[in-house]
């Protein structure tokens, strides 16, 4: 049923979450669990790689909104990278680029974590 998965990787201090499949109201809980796990492990430099994310619904976007404040308060950030154009469009329509660092490539996002001035 669930055609969504979250893969965990890390690059230095940055925790990378590889999203795959479709993120909607049914699968949002998985991403929530993943972010909660990062918080628990105190790995709050979270980079969400959306290269394989095919679809996101408003409920999926809600997950990012739910945690960004907490993550930032604990000194970290959620950055989003490598989104498919169609998925980026959904982020863009809602104005997410105004709230999140949405970067074209994963490397670029990792770099942004290491240079705080870019935040």
């Amino acid at each position: 049923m669930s055609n969504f998965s979250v893969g965990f990787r890390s690059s230095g201090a940055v925790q990378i979450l590889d999203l795959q499949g479709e993120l909607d109201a049914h699968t949002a809980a998985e991403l929530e669990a993943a972010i909660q796990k990062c918080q628990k492990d105190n790995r709050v430099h979270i980079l969400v790689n959306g290269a394989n994310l095919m679809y996101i619904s408003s409920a999926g976007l809600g997950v990012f909104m739910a945690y960004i404040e907490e993550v930032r308060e604990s000194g970290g950030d959620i950055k989003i990278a490598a989104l498919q154009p169609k998925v980026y469009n959904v982020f863009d329509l809602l104005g997410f680029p105004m709230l999140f660092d949405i970067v074209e490539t994963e490397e670029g996002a990792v770099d942004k974590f290491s240079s705080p001035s870019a935040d």
Partner: protein
Amino acid sequence: MPDTSLEKTTQSVTKRLLPARGSLILNGILVVSAWLATMGFHFQQWSAQQPASTTLFLLYAAVTTAGFGGWWFLLRQIQGFKDTSPARKLWTLLVGGSVLMIVAGTVTRFGRISAPGFDLGIGFDLDTGVALTFPTIVKMGIVSLAMVTFSFLLLQRLRSLILVKRSHSSERNWKLLIGLMIASSATTLFMQPGASQNDWQNVAMVIVAVFMVVNAFRLSWIVFLSFKEKLATLGLIFLLGLFILFSLGTGFENSFGMVPRGLEYLEFYFMPLATFTQQAAVFGMIYCVTSFLSLLFHLPTSGDYEQRAGERATMHTLAALVGQVFDADRLFATIAASPVEAGSADASWLVMPDPETGTLRQHVVAAQNLSPDQIELFMDCSELVDALSEDTDGFLIREAAADHRLNVRSSDGLGSLFVVPLVARDERIGALFASKSVVNGFERDDIETISIFAAQASVAIDNARLFEQQVEKERLSRELSIAREVQRKLLPQQAPNLRGTSMAASSVPAQEVGGDYYDFVKLDDDRYGVIIGDVSGKGTSAAFYMAEMQGIFQSVSRLASSPSEFLHHANLALAQSLDRNVFISAIYGILDLKKETFTIARAGHCPAATVRLGGESRLIRTPGLGLGLDRGDLFRKSLVEEHIDLAPGDVFVLYTDGVVESRDVSGEEYGYDRLLAIVDEYRHDDAEGIHAAVLRDLRRFLGAEDYDDDMTLVVLKWHGLPLEVLTGTECVLIESH
């Protein structure tokens, strides 16, 4: 069981087949006239004072046989097939027999024929068998009738006992016995009263005796009696035995009895009848002896039989409960009581997790013969149930006082304990506890019985739960359909009719309720607001925010001078209540009929599509954050309004993502291009036509009737001049230019 029902049907068939009254009367006439004829025969002999000729005697024999044969069937018909208890059968037989014997006995005491020094006996010529006086004939007739009647009644009553739990062989044995009795009686046809039997007759008697014994061991009816009934029947059987002995058994000279020399009268009346009656008496006494002994030996085991009966009755109750699941408390109480009612335990109780608190801790939900408080004092039921997990068959504590898990002293009246789990669909739903007041109180069949109850109870509880869930589901679906109705009323019932414009709108939630919203508002004489919104997520939570959005729109829109100002206020208002992961996208546009402008602002929503008369189409994608994404100043700063000077023929299409993100079977999205294309194609239609065309196209694309997402579509078209002065779209174009 099927035996008795079959019997009942055959009985009712027989009853219907026999024209009861008519055949009774006919039979009665036959019997009475036969009896009178036999009396006439003896009267003729007496008046002639010599025996009748052989021919006449044979005729007499035939009439007598026919008459008493008829009497046998008449008696059977009169008694009917009433299914009464053995004790009642015996009792009525005793009463009936007593009446008959008292009549016979009284008759024999009147009109004694005796002369001083010369005893005439009972008044027959011993050589010829001819009556010496007239009263003798009458006495003989009455006594014989009474004795034969009693013997018939006796046999018929015994038959109904012997044929309890009948089989082919038992029926055959009974018929053989009666047949042999008749046959051996027939051999005495020419015997003189008082003569001894010849060898053939003795052999016949032995054969009859064998069948008497065979039939005398048909005693199945005894098993079904309770202890009390057995006791009562025992007494009655004893009395009946004595009664037979003193009535039919002793009717000869020099014996004492109820009917002095009654059998002698019968012998003079018709010898075969006397033989038959004697045989009936012998069989009656044999049967009394066997049933007396059998009753006596079965007395101690009747408790066991009663327990079986109790088990069966309890099983019936439980089985019936499987269908009656409306009252959980009653169900629990019945289950808890079942081991006690079946006689397999002295106290029993049902232990289950409390569904209301949601904890897994087991507690007593119903108990029989012990209060839940007492039980909790004695033991921790939850702990015992946990111990069951490895033991699916339940466990037995033979000596409660010696078990460390129980807080029981030997004086507490709880000697042994049996715990069996209730399992439904591989899930343990609770446990049935049963206790006996004595140590080692549970026998193997107790444990089996309780285990069967537990299995039955599991099914009943499971059924009850499924039923409850079903009811709950139906309740929810009713609630949701009410919610849907309420939500539908939050949306405009129809688009406003404004001069120079046409509008059409619709909204279809994917589930019963949804998070889509659209609305119109009149701001002043010339200005109208139109809004479309989409709450993130779906279903009930989205529906509540949609309702809040409606409230905010209806109250704030008139106070705001521009779309961005309204959206800013709405954002502030929503910030109080929106969850952090919930946001609302919206487009708000203000149509100014006087200035002929349309000003719109977009808060994260799908861009409005617009097509102009000439076919230029585009998406109006002004910057703007979704409502609730930022609760500070960023939202306000992000908003950018767009002012559009209206030209006749301008079409604006507002929609939610359900429209453009709808996917066909291959997973392809409907998308913006198809939307713009279909609007462009139908741009000459009014709003209604365009609206219908888009929905049609969408449905055709999807190939299915149900939608994944809430889907809302609002179409607005500027015609330019009041519609009422127009005759066609072309006129508008000419006039407005």
